[in-house]
């Protein structure tokens, strides 16, 4: 049996100090150790994209990282997007309004992939959106409504930025 390693990791702004077995996947750490079950687990070999989280602000597959590697790093999961159902993130609102999900299993991965994408590409073309979501699989929607939602989210985010600027 391998030893336990102490790690301290910031998840959604909260510092956690835990002891983990080195082989514990980051996705399992988030779900089972921290109880943050918004991050889903699908293929467990880096193909389906449902476990996507932000690792130091960059999208990464949490199922092909070890929790011990997150020591000293900053993570954001889908739970970090909004505090309650009344105040969803504009991207979440857009997904809801455009019916960009049916079963919802893939949604957290899409959202976490798109947060940094929209930051870097505030006014994306459809081609850029398709490229951005190419690493996430959805078996319900056929992607069309997801693309519509990203367009809507982009305009919502632009509008809220304009309001803040004014």
């Amino acid at each position, binding site marked *: 049996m391998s030893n336990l390693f102490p790690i301290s990791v910031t998840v959604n702004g909260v510092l956690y100090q835990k002891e983990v077995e080195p*082989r514990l996947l980051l996705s399992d750490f988030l779900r089972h150790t921290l109880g943050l079950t918004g991050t889903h687990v699908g293929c467990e070999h880096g193909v389906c994209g449902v476990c996507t989280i932000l690792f130091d602000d960059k999208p990464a597959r949490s199922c092909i990282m070890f929790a011990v590697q997150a020591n000293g790093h900053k993570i954001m999961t889908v739970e970090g997007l909004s505090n309650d159902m009344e105040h969803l993130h504009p991207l979440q609102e857009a997904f809801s309004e455009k019916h960009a999900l049916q079963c919802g299993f893939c949604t957290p991965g899409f959202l976490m992939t798109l947060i940094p994408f929209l930051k870097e590409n505030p006014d994306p073309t459809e081609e850029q959106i398709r490229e951005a979501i190419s690493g996430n699989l959805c078996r319900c929607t056929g992607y069309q409504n997801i693309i519509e939602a990203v367009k809507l989210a982009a305009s919502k985010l632009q509008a809220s930025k304009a309001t803040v600027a004014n």
Partner: protein
Amino acid sequence: MKPAPFEYVVPKNLNDCLNFLYQHSETAKILAGGQSLIPTMNFRMAQPEYLIDINNLNELSFIRTDKTGGLQMGALIRHHQVENDPLIAQKAPLLHEVMPWIGHVQIRSRGTIGGSLVHADPAAELPSAMVALNARFKVKSKKKERWIPAEQFFVGLFATALEPGEMLVEIAIPAMPLHSGYSFQEYSRRKGDFALVGVACMLVLDKNKVCEQARLVYMGVGEGPVLAAQACQSLVGKTLTPDLLQQAAKIASQNDLTPPNDMHASSAYRRHLAEVLGHQSLSQSLERAEKSF
């Protein structure tokens, strides 16, 4: 779908790392980006006893130029860094063009250039690009340090010239000759998948527009990167015409390659792709090389 237990080792510096690797070369694996290693560990196809995490070795994380205008990169440089680095876009535009083809954005934010090269997947983009670019790899062990040309580094299916206790530490790419053109073409079933067939191409012309060097390197058609030697030979010393390029692509697909048959594509289909993509990459390379005059 969970990895078998292992001992986790975090070396403080490269020497530490090489010492440990020397002692446990048979049972240790190096963990860099982990984007290929951890999936194989999840499947338990790999069950290393020790995992040496080199992510803190900042000495392997650099991008710089040498005196001759060539590029030097530490093995721990991540794909997204290569993709977004202006120096690389300028000095090694072929490499810059290859990067978006590697996996997806989530993979590129973690995966490392050294990790991809030592993994040596026969359908991966970087090994072929490195062979096309005449890159050289610096490998180090506790006992010695040596340089291996990319062409000699890939020795078979997921196999490299690395000896037990050695690790890849640096990648050197020579400066692009004055009149050179490049191209990268790939066909895969879905965007971001490994290539069914891909090809990296470099053409170098002399001042009279005569072909001085041709590098047409395929992926997905063999046990590693495949340099289409006969096709390249058919171009060197000649003034390149569309007919010659068409003919070279045919030579590559018919004489230089023995593509595998598998569930993803038949050998004949891969041969067809090799000709089409080879022709496209040669044509684009020539077009780009001619712009330099």
